[in-house]
């Protein structure tokens, strides 16, 4: 500051730090630590050589990951989970997307009622939906089957797919389809070449959400649990009720990796910016 300079530069005034913003920023950093901490802790513990939880971690091992492979129910349940998640999402999209396309351009009370109806399963607590569906499907004598599980997850998935497709389709100018029609496209051609490519981000975003929700939907799945229809959360819960060792941490970490892979694959197939834009 005090150094004399020949070039008469006006002294650069230092900006007064905004203490409120800095304090808020520090709080947000702490908050994000709070969000990340339990997840990081589980990943860390999954490599712990101790069979009980202790810090600092005495040593590192991969034995809990081997345990996943040894203990059949984990692998079986993981496969069931993925199958149910994918199949129910495809089914939900097949049912929900055409309806969303029809409803997005409709006005009036009936259309609004139907839209709300399609979104309704999201507002019913999953445990209530699961309970009700189990009794109903059991009365049709396929209560504990893969079909029952699939139906339950499809009901839960329909709102997600419908909601995003509705939003994306509403944001598209309707004259794109009119332009297609004037150019000679039949309804099917317009759907195939114009509408579907344009709502695809909505289908993907809603589908991804439905898949992630399905993978984690314990309250819905545990009613349908049997040897062949238990999803991963159900098996993990019953394992935890009997023993408490880091293999649960390892399974959780693997499940997280599966979800990340799903996200990356979706990103590769369809850009992630396009997903968030929807």
């Amino acid at each position, binding site marked *: 500051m005090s150094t004399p300079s020949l070039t008469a530069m006006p002294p650069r005034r230092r900006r007064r730090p905004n203490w409120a913003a800095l304090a808020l920023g520090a709080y947000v950093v702490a908050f994000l630590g709070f969000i990340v901490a339990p997840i990081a802790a589980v990943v860390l513990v999954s490599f712990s050589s101790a069979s009980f939880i202790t810090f600092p971690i005495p040593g590192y091992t991969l034995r809990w990951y081997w345990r996943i492979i040894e203990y059949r129910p984990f692998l079986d349940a993981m496969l069931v989970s993925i199958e149910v998640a994918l199949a129910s999402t495809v089914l939900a999209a097949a049912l929900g997307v055409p309806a969303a396309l029809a409803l997005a351009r409709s006005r009036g009370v009936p259309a609004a009622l139907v839209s709300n109806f399609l979104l309704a399963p999201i507002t019913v607590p999953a445990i209530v939906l699961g309970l009700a569906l189990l009794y109903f499907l059991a009365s049709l004598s396929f209560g504990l089957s893969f079909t029952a599980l699939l139906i339950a997850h499809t009901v839960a998935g329909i709102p997600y797919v419908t909601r995003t497709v509705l939003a994306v389709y509403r944001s598209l*100018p309707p*004259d*794109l389809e*009119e*332009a*297609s*029609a*004037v*150019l*000679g*496209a*039949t309804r099917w*051609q*317009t759907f195939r*070449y*114009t509408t579907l*490519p*344009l709502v695809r981000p909505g289908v993907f975003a809603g589908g991804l959400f439905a898949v992630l929700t399905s993978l984690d939907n314990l309250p819905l799945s545990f009613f349908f649990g049997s040897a062949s229809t238990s999803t991963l959360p159900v098996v993990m819960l019953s394992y935890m009720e009997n023993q408490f060792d880091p293999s649960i941490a390892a399974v959780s970490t693997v499940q997280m990796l599966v979800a990340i892979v799903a996200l990356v694959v979706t990103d590769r197939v369809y850009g992630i910016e396009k997903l968030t834009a929807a």
Partner: protein
Amino acid sequence: MTSAVPLKLAEISKSFGSLQALKPLTLAIGGGEMLALLGPSGCGKTTTLRIIAGFEAPDTGQVLIGGEDVTDLAPNRRGLGMVFQNYSLFPHMSVAENVAYGLKMRRVPAAERRVRVRRMLDLVRLGQYEDRQIHQLSGGQQQRVALARSLVTNPSVLLLDEPLGALDKNLRERMQFELREIQRRLGITSIIVTHDQEEALTMSDRVAVMAEGRIVQVGAPTEVYERPRTRFVSEFLGTANIFAGTVADRAGPEDWAVTLDLDRAPRSLVRSPEPLAAGRRVLLAVRPERLTIGPPEEDGIPARVQDVVFRGSYFAYELDVPGQDGPVFAYSQARREVPADGRVGLSWPASGAIVLQDAPSSQNSPASQDSPASQDAP
């Protein structure tokens, strides 16, 4: 390129709920003609275009293209070309894919598609842009892609829905000429919907002025501009000064002297091919450029200059005329000498004023506020 196909609308009408968007409307467009549908928003011009395109079905009436009734035909089977207001280019396709779309739908082989797309892009001077994405283009370029896309299928009729509305003023004027040039070259029957009177007058062979779901006047641009039938038309196509008065006597073969309500002296002239009976109440329309500003002592209408605005190619004078509600406007190429007190006299030649069909209001109140035609529900 295409043999010119005439288009006819026979008594089409359309209501949306309780709103009657189109009162039974009949209109014929000759083969190769460019017709402008001009009117304020909500006048029914867009509804008319959408009925021609097949997006809306009329409640009554028929749409005939080349003599064939297409009223019940789906849009994709009408063989039309259309340029949308904001172009409606497919955002997920390149320029070439957009232009090729209509050909692809008609299952034109890929090789032929490529040739025709290229030829059309050359026509709109976008030959280098084939592989660009739509969002990489400027507004004017997008407009040209939309035009190329609508023309590549050799449509029988070209529909243009406010095609230049999204462009800025300079580009819009250039595109007006370009579009008109291409339309003439292809000789394609065209309808342009616009709310911009200048665009309508520049681009079309005929202008149909619409208001409140019906056509108020149809005619060549000069005719509609110079001989508007109603106050609405005269005011919608540029600025018009409206004066109420009573016919006094004959002043020439087609000229008549009129006593204006505002000064009651029988000295204003109007030209009318039809005879006007003495004592008849009339509304006169005088374009600002036909008004002459002179010295106050001559037998002009006494007025006082309120403001002078330089508008580039002319001077606009805002004048206060005693007895007339609202300002009177006069345009002049050269700047006039105005005395310090602003007092001047206004006059016009007989050919500068025309008689409108609207009936003026009662004797003593100068007509100005009540213009039934200019109220238009959106």
